[in-house]
């Protein structure tokens, strides 16, 4: 499953990036470069060879773990990915975790109090989350909490001054975890303060979708025969809602949550740009602006791997939740 997907993605991406009517050589050479300089850069980068040969070389290198050198950062792409991905992973996972913890109970609550004040409030809240553009919300939060009240940093992942005084020992690449394990409290505090705003922005957006999803699938389940049957058996409402119904309602919710998670792990571009969060999205946008082919290809391949993996995990979760699904 993974192999054909990756092969397909690599072919499509490779050709799309290479048919763009602009050359990285021109960008590297600058506006005053002569034709000769440009041709020289092109031959250095191998851009003068036929496209299918270029692709062949690329794939051979990728298979041996070499994604090439980033034109923009001059680092091996694989190193760049290793540096930038943990930031995205940290932000996305934290946001997703919080969303699940709040969103599912909120959806259930909304469904079991259908058409009452609490339900209307929840729906209004989640509707606003869908309707409000991410960048707008991000800017508002920055303006309010960073500029006016000076409570939180405007952007970035950690205060560079703090890391200078209290260097972080890199283990997982996740600042929250690394600083927590090593007991580096000043750095931990700084990391927490920095992650609050981007997480809040993401959570607000994610909550909207997830709450609506779990509310509607819960409503659907509450109409089922076995719920009425459980009521006729005199089971307490709490058991019926949170055990009998939720387990069934989680199945579609898990799908949405999983797909969104996979999507965001590929870089929550808007949020990362607004908060200058040095994640995959931030890196990808930078690479695209400078036509950094190897970097763009590297990001795309990584995103494809993540997406397929998350999908696999969702499929496995299905079987755990629903005994009717069995994989042979």
């Amino acid at each position: 499953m993974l192999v054909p997907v990756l092969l397909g993605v690599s072919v499509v991406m490779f050709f799309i990036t290479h048919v763009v009517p602009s050359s990285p050589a021109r960008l590297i050479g600058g506006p005053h470069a002569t034709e000769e300089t440009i041709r020289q850069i092109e031959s250095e980068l191998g851009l003068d060879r036929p496209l299918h040969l270029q692709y062949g070389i690329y794939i051979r290198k990728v298979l041996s773990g070499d994604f090439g050198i980033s034109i923009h950062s001059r680092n091996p792409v694989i190193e760049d990915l290793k540096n930038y991905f943990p930031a995205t992973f940290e932000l996305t996972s934290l946001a997703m975790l919080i969303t699940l913890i709040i969103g599912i109970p909120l959806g259930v609550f909304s469904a079991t109090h259908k058409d009452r004040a609490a339900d209307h409030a929840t729906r209004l809240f989640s509707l606003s989350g869908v309707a409000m553009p991410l960048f707008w919300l991000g800017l508002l939060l920055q303006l309010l909490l960073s500029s006016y009240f000076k409570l939180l940093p405007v952007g970035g992942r950690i205060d560079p001054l703090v890391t200078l005084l209290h260097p972080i020992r890199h283990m997982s690449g996740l600042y929250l975890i690394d600083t927590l394990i090593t007991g580096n409290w000043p750095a931990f505090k700084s990391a927490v303060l920095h992650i609050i705003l981007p997480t809040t922005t993401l959570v607000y957006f994610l909550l909207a979708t997830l709450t609506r999803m779990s509310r509607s699938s819960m409503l659907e389940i509450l109409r089922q025969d076995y719920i009425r049957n459980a009521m006729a058996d005199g089971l307490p409402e709490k058991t019926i809602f949170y055990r009998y119904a939720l387990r069934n309602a989680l199945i579609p919710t898990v799908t949405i949550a999983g797909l969104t998670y996979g999507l965001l792990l590929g870089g929550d571009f808007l949020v990362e740009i607004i908060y200058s969060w040095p994640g995959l999205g931030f890196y990808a946008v930078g690479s695209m602006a400078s036509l950094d082919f190897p970097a763009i290809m590297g990001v795309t391949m990584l995103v494809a791997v993540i997406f397929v993996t998350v999908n696999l995990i969702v499929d496995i979760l299905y079987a755990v939740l629903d005994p009717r699904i069995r994989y042979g």
Partner: protein
Amino acid sequence: MGDLLLRVKDLYTHFYTFEGTVKALDGISLELKRAETLGLVGETGCGKSVTALSILGLIPCPPGKVEAAEIWFDGVDLLKLDKEEMRAIRGKKIAMIFQEPATALNPVFPVGEQTAEIIRIHKQVSKREGMQKAVEMFHLVGIPDPDRVSKKYPHELSGGMNQRVMIAAKLSSNPALLVADEPTTALDVTVQAQILQLMKGLVQRFRTAVIFITHDLGVVAEICDRVAVMYAGVIVESSKTRVLFENPRHPYTRSLLQAIPKLVERIDRLPVISGTVPSLINPPSGCRFHPRCSLADSPCKVEKPSPTSVEAEHWVSCFRYDQGD
């Protein structure tokens, strides 16, 4: 009357929908003695299930609204109970079996666990004791290898087996009243007979009273002591089962019985009741059956007939039941 278990008086259940008020039940009254089996017969949509759900307090409200002079059950008026008191009665003293065993069981829990959960809640026993009792009940309802079956999920069992599980679960708390809403309709004919025999045996053994909802007069003849015939939210006739089959008085009951083909007669066409079941949003005035009744007269169109005693324990709601023999 010391033997009386349930008395429903003037039960009106209405549903408030966008299209209008659905008057699903229009003054249902019925009585049930302990260990007695009452058949509730009628076409689809005549209010049989609504009657049952109203008694159990399971009508969703809104859009539904249940009103009655009383629903007296074993010394208490169910209408006066609050939510929690009603829940304590449901499943423990009044149990209900639904039509589709496959959809009435929760698809994501093993059947043994579901049964044990009910036992645990009503008998306040531990999880393990609940499970033991569940397996015992499975054995009692004739499930082969109950230990193994208790770990299965509903989709791994046949319809008949699921209905046995259901019966086991419902009878586990030894309820005084069992409401069975078409428990055999979704099953194969041979399995139907087995399930009916099983239920008959068990309710006799536990002295459980049963309200047996069905549209199958054959099933009624098989297991019911008394029978009440419903039409468009009204009970039109009720009597001992035997009496009803031998001496039906309401024109609707008669037409129903005529529509059953007999083995010894050769006919090409079965008699049908002309017209269709009326809308319950805008039901006919007077007797709800009058537009389809061959005996209908002017009073039938304006006045609602009340139950009249024809003989001992035989009531009929019709102005002209003595006509047209």
